[in-house]
């Protein structure tokens, strides 16, 4: 059986070696052409959010500013369908404010006319989720050059880099570098797309949403620079994706401390329980005291000293 198995192993290894050689032969014969994104794609910018790190917490004023940016800018195209108006309580709005935000929301909620049974719409209630800007995917694509604006509820969990990625995209629009066009003359950004080195394939369908300072008028006196607005809305989208973040960090800390203490106590108990066992290991063979006594007696009997 060992020979059969050894043969099978050799066959697999042999086929792998054939694959290896043909793979490398292809690679050296026609090496893959480099892509513009291999060279010009950038990792997300290094920017600090208060929710970062083990003790990260939200800054409610920032989240409210971010919500304002979302409702005045992003919500024109992007839905937020997993979040309810009532969830806004988590970023510091009270019931009356939430009711007003819901009923003033620019899109209404599909409903049925109670008298005729015909399709109708009604004002949103705090218990509703944010109504999407487009009724369906076809409508969304039709309004956006056939690109589909993604739902933003989970965007900071659904992209590598999270909030840093969102911030980098929002602030990363720029003209296509001359160096890129020189090296890859065919890689000109197509019409209706926009060059953004933080986007994986460098050309994003979304036009720059935050273009001028003061595009949104903040009520708390913060200066609404493009950078500030991008940061605030990225922070807000961390909250929409992980509204439990503060609780999670707090609970995690408590559970970790509890487990640490329990583990230390467990370790001390273990030490105490094993202390005796470690001292009472009894030797066997020639070192067994019983055997040593026997040896001594035998030696004494035979008259051998030592």
């Amino acid at each position: 059986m060992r020979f059969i198995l050894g043969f099978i192993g050799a066959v697999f290894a042999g086929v792998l070696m054939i694959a290896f050689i043909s793979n490398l032969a292809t690679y050296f014969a026609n090496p893959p052409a480099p892509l513009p994104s291999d060279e010009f794609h950038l990792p997300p910018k290094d920017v600090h959010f208060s929710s970062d790190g083990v003790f990260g917490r939200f800054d409610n004023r920032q989240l409210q500013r971010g919500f304002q940016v979302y409702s005045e800018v992003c919500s024109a195209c992007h839905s937020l369908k997993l979040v309810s108006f009532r969830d806004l309580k988590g970023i510091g709005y009270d019931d009356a404010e939430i009711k007003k935000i819901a009923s003033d929301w620019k899109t209404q909620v599909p409903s049925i006319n109670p008298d005729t049974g015909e399709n109708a719409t009604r004002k949103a209630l705090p218990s509703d989720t944010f109504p999407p800007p487009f009724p369906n995917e076809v409508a969304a694509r039709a309004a956006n050059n056939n690109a589909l604006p993604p739902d933003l509820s989970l965007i900071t969990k659904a992209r590598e880099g999270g909030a840093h990625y969102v911030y980098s995209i929002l602030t990363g629009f720029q003209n296509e570098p001359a160096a890129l066009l020189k090296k890859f003359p065919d890689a000109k950004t197509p019409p209706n797309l926009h060059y953004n080195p933080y986007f994986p394939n460098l050309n994003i369908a979304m036009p720059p949403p935050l273009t001028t300072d003061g595009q949104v008028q903040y009520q708390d006196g913060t200066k609404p620079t493009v950078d500030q607005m991008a940061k605030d809305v990225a922070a807000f989208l961390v909250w929409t994706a992980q509204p439990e973040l503060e609780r999670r960090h707090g609970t995690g800390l408590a559970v970790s401390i509890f487990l640490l203490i329990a583990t230390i106590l467990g370790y001390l108990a273990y030490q105490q329980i094993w202390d005796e066992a470690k001292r009472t290991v009894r030797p066997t063979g020639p070192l067994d005291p019983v055997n040593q006594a026997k040896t001594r007696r035998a030696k004494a009997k035979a008259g051998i000293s030592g």
Partner: protein
Amino acid sequence: MSFSWAKPYEPKTPLMRWIDERLPLPRLVYGAVGGGYPVPRNLNYWWNFGVAAGIFLTIQIITGIVLAMHFTASTDGAFDSVNQLIMRDVNAGWLLRYAHMNGASFFFLVVYVHIFRGLYYGSYKAPREMVWMLGLVIYLLMMATAFMGYVLPWGQMSYWGAQVITGFFSAFPVVGDPLRIWILGGYAPDQAALTRFFSLHYLLPFVIAGVVILHIWALHIPGSNNPTGVDVKDERDTLPFHPFYTAKDGWFSGAILLAYVIVTFFLPNYLGSPDNYIQANPLSTPAEIVPEWYLLPFYAILRSFTADFILPAKLWGVLAMFSSILLLFFLPWIDRSPVRSGAYRPVFKRFFWLLVIDVIVLGWVGGSPVKPLTVAVGQIAAAYYFLHFLVILSLVSAFETPLPLPRSISDSVLHGEEAEAAPIGSKPRRSRTATAAAE
């Protein structure tokens, strides 16, 4: 159980006596994980991962049952039921879900340590072949369960993972496509697949629990292996499981749980793929379809077969991937060295660590984008994987001269091995004398 000095159960209270006389469950527990199970006294911390695996199975079953109460197994509702209902509206639902998600990863992590411990110390060898094979059955069931569980949230990776993994079956000639369609209940993952995966994902953990009982039962016939690999000779070599190993497992499981808690609460999505927070879309393929980290080495083996040679490359890959796990069932008969522990096998030991590195490299390759050079590394690593188990182990066990073994476990505990060395040749040696004598 099989040692003559194992203490029989003695009820301490009239109630326990009453129960024990009518249903000897207390006796069973006492003999399995209580004072009635003598365990080699020299077990090191690598022996603590079996109990940890049991703890994670329990965590998975408990969190899973509660999650199932809130989950909707429909292609329209699954994603929202997880990401809206459970993560936002169910009380502590986020905790249940993150605990379940990361619990799966930690379950695999401790099981991998457990398996590699068995590989190093020869725990698969006689008389523990059955323990080893039942363990492999558990591992296969775990992989099936984890795969189906990953499909349930119906994210992009769920969908495309299901597409790719069920696609393996279509590599087989003639029966392949009908088999795949039968498994999925359709031509692509859809409602039928989601519902049956949910049903099976709920069923299999209980099957795992059943096989775990068999695994422990089989273990208790010869008793635990130990770092010297030398058989237990008499009572001095053992300690009762309780309180000694309950205490050791207790604190060490606490330490493992601490790591688990830190990941669950502070880095809950670190081990997952961001793409799974995008709802499944059959029309849009993700740039990279990557399974969960614990399946990456096998995924790398699958993708290493890039050349058609007699058979199509895809069929080679699928055969190799299935073989890479199935060959482990033959391990007890491939490695015929009479010495169990790798500590006394200088040549085996080197190859063992090479295998550990090899599997880590395979995992890295499996998680990297397909590029000719990474694939080339994966091809070498995959070839080594097969050669290691099917050729090298066989040869090493035939030609290696092992180091002298200690006379007994107590001796090795008392004073290093060399002092009491009893040289043994490379000839096979009956290694069951102690258990035979005990019987």
